[in-house]
Each structure stands twice: as C-alpha cells, then as structure tokens.
C-alpha cells in the first residue's frame, strides 16, 4: 500500500496549507448549523412540561460536554500518532486541542451550574457527572501545565503525549468510579438505546447543535494548529515566505 499520502501530513507546510484551505469548509457550516440549532432550540421547540423554558440550556450544555470528551480523545490520538511516528505536526495538533477542550469543559460546567440553580436549587452538587467533568478539567490543566513547565519543546511534546495517553486510560475509570455515588443528574435522554425519551421538535435542534459544535471544534482546532505550526517553524524559510505574502 502506498503511504505517501500519510507521510505528507507530516510536512508542516503541507499541513499548514491544507488546514488553511479546510478551515472555511468547517467554519461556515458550523456557524449556519449553530444559528439554525439555536433558533430551533430557543424559539421553535416547545417548553418542557416540567422544566419550562429552563431546559433550553441543554442546547449548549450537552454539545459542550460531548466535545469536552471528544477533544480529549482527539488530543490523545494525535499525541499517540506523534509519539509513535515521531510526527511533529501531530504534536502541534495535540497541543492545539488542549485549550479548546479545556474551554468546552468550562462551558459544560458553567451551563450545567446555571441550569442547576433553578432546577436543583444550587449551583453545585457533588453529582458523579459533574465531578467527572471537573476531574476532566483538572486533567486538561495538568496537561497544559506539564507542557508549559518543560522548556525543551520536543521533550514537552513527548512527555505531555505520555500524560494524554495515561489520561485516556484513566478517564473511563474515573467516570465509572464516580458513577458509584447515587446520581441526581438527568438520566441521558439522547444516547439511549431504542427510542429517545424527548420529542422530535426538541431533539432535532439538539442534534443540529451537536453537529454544529463538532464542526466548530474542528474549525477552531485547524486555526490553532496553523498558529502552532507557524510558531514552531518560525526559524524556517517557508514561514518567512508565507508571512511575507
């Protein structure tokens, strides 16, 4: 099998150009889908018979929570690729996933707290899923902290890659350990086998938001990865050519 297409990803100028070309293809659909999803969720969907309009925060909360986990998986996958094939740009991608994932985690926590105040009567409870999300935030911060503490960039890449992989083994364990307390969190209403327990007018905008947020994540990651590649390759000639243009 011909692997040149794979090795071309390893070339920083190639990936820089490719990421630049791909960004609008993710960013515009993301913007349109998020706008459509917000309109559908905030205006068209009927209020919940129990929670009233309060439930609408789910349209931001659930996609953020989903992306906080997905960004971590992407980060670990990119880190593993960088570690195994010694691919510098993969480390650049992993490094650019971390802050985005951390902010999605913060967004999921904050929207959850805003929802919790009227529904549970308090901003914070030690509910398993909240706790797992908080631990995930600490994992992101540890990764970012380790990366910034090591001065040599290559060592920082490889050491933080090991940490990301160790974390990926541990995230499910943390998740299931904290499930052992009794949960007062909403039972999952979308990712359920069989029929989802929410009605279609409510569900459709949510699914649109899921797709929109995922595309937004990819677009943000591409932009950040471009910046990261430029910063790392600032000594090389192709960067000065790109910047001169």
């Amino acid at each position, binding site marked *: 099998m011909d692997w040149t297409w794979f090795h071309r990803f390893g070339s920083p100028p190639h990936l820089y150009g490719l990421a630049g070309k791909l960004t609008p293809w993710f960013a515009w659909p993301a913007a349109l889908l998020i706008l459509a999803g917000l309109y559908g969720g905030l205006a068209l969907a009927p209020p919940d018979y129990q929670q009233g309009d309060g439930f609408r925060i789910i349209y931001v909360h659930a996609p953020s929570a989903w992306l906080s986990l997905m960004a971590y998986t992407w980060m670990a996958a990119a880190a593993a690729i960088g*570690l195994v094939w010694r691919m510098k740009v993969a480390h650049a991608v992993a490094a650019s996933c971390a802050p985005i994932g951390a902010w999605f985690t913060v967004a999921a926590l904050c929207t959850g707290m805003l929802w919790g105040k009227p529904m549970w009567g308090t901003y914070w409870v030690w509910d398993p899923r909240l706790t797992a999300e908080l*631990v995930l935030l*600490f*994992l992101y*911060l*540890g990764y970012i*902290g*380790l990366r910034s*503490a*090591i001065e*040599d960039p*290559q*060592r920082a890449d*490889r*050491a933080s890659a*090991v*940490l990301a*992989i*160790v*974390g990926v*083994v*541990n995230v499910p*364990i*943390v998740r299931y*350990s*904290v499930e*052992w307390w009794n949960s007062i969190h909403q039972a999952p209403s979308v990712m359920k086998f069989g029929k989802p327990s929410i009605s279609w007018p409510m569900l459709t905008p949510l699914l649109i938001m899921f797709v929109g947020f995922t595309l937004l994540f990819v677009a943000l990651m591409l932009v950040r990865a471009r910046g990261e590649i430029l910063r790392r390759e600032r000594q090389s000639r192709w960067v000065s050519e790109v910047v001169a243009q």
Partner: protein
Amino acid sequence: MSDAWQAAKLVIERDLRLAFRNRGQLLHPLLFFAIVTTLFPLALSPEPSRLRDVAPAVLWVGALLSSLLAIEFLFREDAQDGTLEQYALSGRSLTWLLFAKTVSHWLLAGLPLALMSPVAAYGLAVSPDAMPGIIGSVALGTIALSLLGAVSAGLTIGIKRGGALLSLLTLPLAVPLLIFGAQATARAIEGGNMAAPMYFLGAFAVLGITLAPLAAAAAVRISME
C-alpha cells in the same frame, strides 16, 4: 534464579539500603501524615462520633498527600547522579527495572503508611476491631498509587519546582483510588462487608502493574533525552 529476577533484587536491595542510610527522608512523609491527621480533631471537634464519621476521608486524603511527598523523591536523586541513565543503558528492560524501583518505593512509603494508619485511626476514635481492614485497604490502595506516582514522577524529572505540578498530574488520576479506598475504610469502620471496594482496589493494582511501568519507562526515557 534468572537474570531478570537478580537485577530486580539488586535494584530493590540498593534502594532499601540507601533509604535506611538516610532515614530522615523516609520519616518525613509519615510525620506529615501523623500531623495532618492530628489537625482534624483540632479543627473539627474532639467528639468521637463526629471524628469516626470523617475518619475514612481524613485517613485517605492524608495518605494521598503524604505519598505525594514520597513520590517527589522517587526518581530525583537517581536522575541527578546518573543512576537512571545507567539503568536505561544497562541493556535490561527499563520497564522491569522501574517496576522493581516502584516495588521498593511501596515497601518504603506505602507499607509504612499502611502500618501507621491504625494509629491515626485510633486517634480518630475508630474501634480496634476495624484495624486489620484499615491496614489492608491502605496497603492495597497504595500499590496502585505508587505505580501512578512513578508515571508522574517520571514525567516531571528535571522540572524545577515540580512539586505542585506533580500533584496536579497525580491527584486527578488518583480519584478512583480515593473513592474506593475511602469506601473500603468506611466499611471496615462500620464493620460491613468490604469485599467490593477491595476488589476494585485490587483491580486497579493489577491494571497499574500491567501498564504503569511501561508508561513510567517511556516518561523516564523522554525526560532523559
């Protein structure tokens, strides 16, 4: 006795001998544990029933924090004087040698902590019947903790003021140990059946023994580049 066992035995013997020549360092984490557990009755109240309620939490948070102190010293001197580099160049599997090193670390940090926890527990008004269970749960939980610590210690070799970073890396990953460890200790104090949390601690120890030395060896190699 095969070569690999011989090498592991030598590593463990060396670590134990060095540790006993420098006993002060060995005692610091234990003293820290003793002091932290003493602070709780002073801050909370000397009433036995309240102390007994918080005893598992106090014991496990104290154990986690004091083993962080011990983990900081796990690789520090060996990295400074070049021993770790010799291990890496010795032609033996670095994974295996680091596993041996983690075993000696558990013997020097985890086991003493487990043996000391009944004293702290007694101070927290726990009845003597619960002591075997407490020793068992702390001993089992610190196995996985030592292995986890070996990975983060390997990652932070050579970082100046790495102590705070070490806690940031280790503590979130240690959450499952804290949950099941404290649960096992709580069951021991109530006199309940502690099989389920102990099985979990055992499973974490096995998982740690399987994977953590590999990750620690990778981390040490990267840190020495």
